């Protein structure tokens, strides 16, 4: 019995010492990393415009000055409007060994298709404020896991079809309606695709279609006439509504009623 107790005492003491040494060492190691100026560093977001999309780029630096490894580092950004997630992006670093450094750029890309998929077609036309939610998750030394959530920050949204207006200016009396289309591309993206207008009479019958190629850089105003070919004679007064579609390479966004 005494031998058993002596062995138990010895092993308990030894394990307790090892346990506290481990806890202290991991705590000190993590503190060393976090307290370093660029231990966990995240820069400011920067806008980069692309074709029918734009990116928010955020530089980051993880400098593991401690002795233990970081695992499953996930930097996630969500862009929301009225609590509906429009887009979510995650940068994943599987492992960052002790004494190593990692620089990178976290990218969140918003494209027109994302907006359409999230049922936010109105954002193509209206200025508003979105929310940016950021979280950072990681495991440390295989035993601790952290989840850090920054408060939601407002993100100004600039629409690509701002102040959209459509006026039917002329009818040639036979097969062509001439419409004047105006909008401002306030977004950082270059909008490229096809605009399609579908004209309906007051009974809801499709009477004509107008098509126009579009390639408009950021910050440029579009103010061009657009021809709508109608199947039967239709005076501007008889128009019930005009639906707007925007066709990109692989998707059609719309319809949005823009006239009537």
């Amino acid at each position, binding site marked *: 019995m005494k031998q*058993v107790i002596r062995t138990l005492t010895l092993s*308990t003491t030894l394990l307790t010492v090892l346990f506290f040494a481990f806890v202290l060492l991991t705590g000190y190691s993590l503190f060393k990393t976090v307290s370093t100026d660029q231990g966990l560093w995240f820069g400011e977001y920067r806008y980069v415009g692309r074709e029918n999309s734009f990116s928010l780029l955020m530089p980051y630096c993880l400098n593991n000055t401690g002795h233990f490894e970081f695992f499953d580092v996930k930097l996630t950004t969500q862009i929301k409007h009225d609590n509906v997630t429009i887009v979510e992006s995650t940068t994943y670093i599987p492992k960052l060994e002790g004494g190593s450094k990692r620089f990178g750029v976290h990218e969140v890309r918003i494209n027109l298709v994302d907006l359409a998929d999230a049922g936010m077609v109105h954002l193509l036309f209206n200025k508003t404020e979105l929310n940016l939610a950021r979280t950072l998750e990681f495991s440390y030394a295989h*035993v601790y896991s952290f989840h850090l959530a920054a*408060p939601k920050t407002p993100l100004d949204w600039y629409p690509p079809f701002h102040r959209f207006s459509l006026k039917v200016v002329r009818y040639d009396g036979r097969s062509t309606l001439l419409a004047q289309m105006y909008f401002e591309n306030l977004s950082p993206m270059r909008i490229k695709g096809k605009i399609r207008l579908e004209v309906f009479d007051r009974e809801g019958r499709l009477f004509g279609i107008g098509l126009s190629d579009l390639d408009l850089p950021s910050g440029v105003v579009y103010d061009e006439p657009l021809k709508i070919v109608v199947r039967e004679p239709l005076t501007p007064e008889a128009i019930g509504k005009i639906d707007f579609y925007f066709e990109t390479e692989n998707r059609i966004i719309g319809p949005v009623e823009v006239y009537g």
Partner: protein
Amino acid sequence: MDKGETVEKLFRRVVRALLWSLLMGGEILLLYFLPSFRLYVTSPSPIEDAFLPLLSLFVVIEFLIRLTEGTVIPYILSSARASIMIYLLYQLTGGGVYTSSLVVRGVPVEVTFQFRSVLDAFTLLLLLDLSKNVLGAISFLHEKVEEQLKTEASF
């Protein structure tokens, strides 16, 4: 044994118990109440709330254990301490998940810190300590009974 010897023995025992309790966490308690120490080491309230009662309990029981050495009481106290520590650790730390709002480089951040595996490992150590003390108490009582029987037999 005269009265002077008893007092001296008791005094030695108290001093020894004090030294042991100082060694087993008392020094942290003392540091903790030093104003200069608190200036540099600040912790969020929930951790502070959990840390102080746990450490105080640990130190007080350690003092009592050392004071009552040579009886069965230290085994009982140690077992009780291990059981209470397990219960309090899980209660006060929410099962090893701690959430708090901290200000990191001027930005208020909600931090969730999970340390379940560390808590589980410590619980295992406490259980090992508990079993050791139960066995120790049984062995101690067994020895006492044997001694008593030997004394009775010698008469």
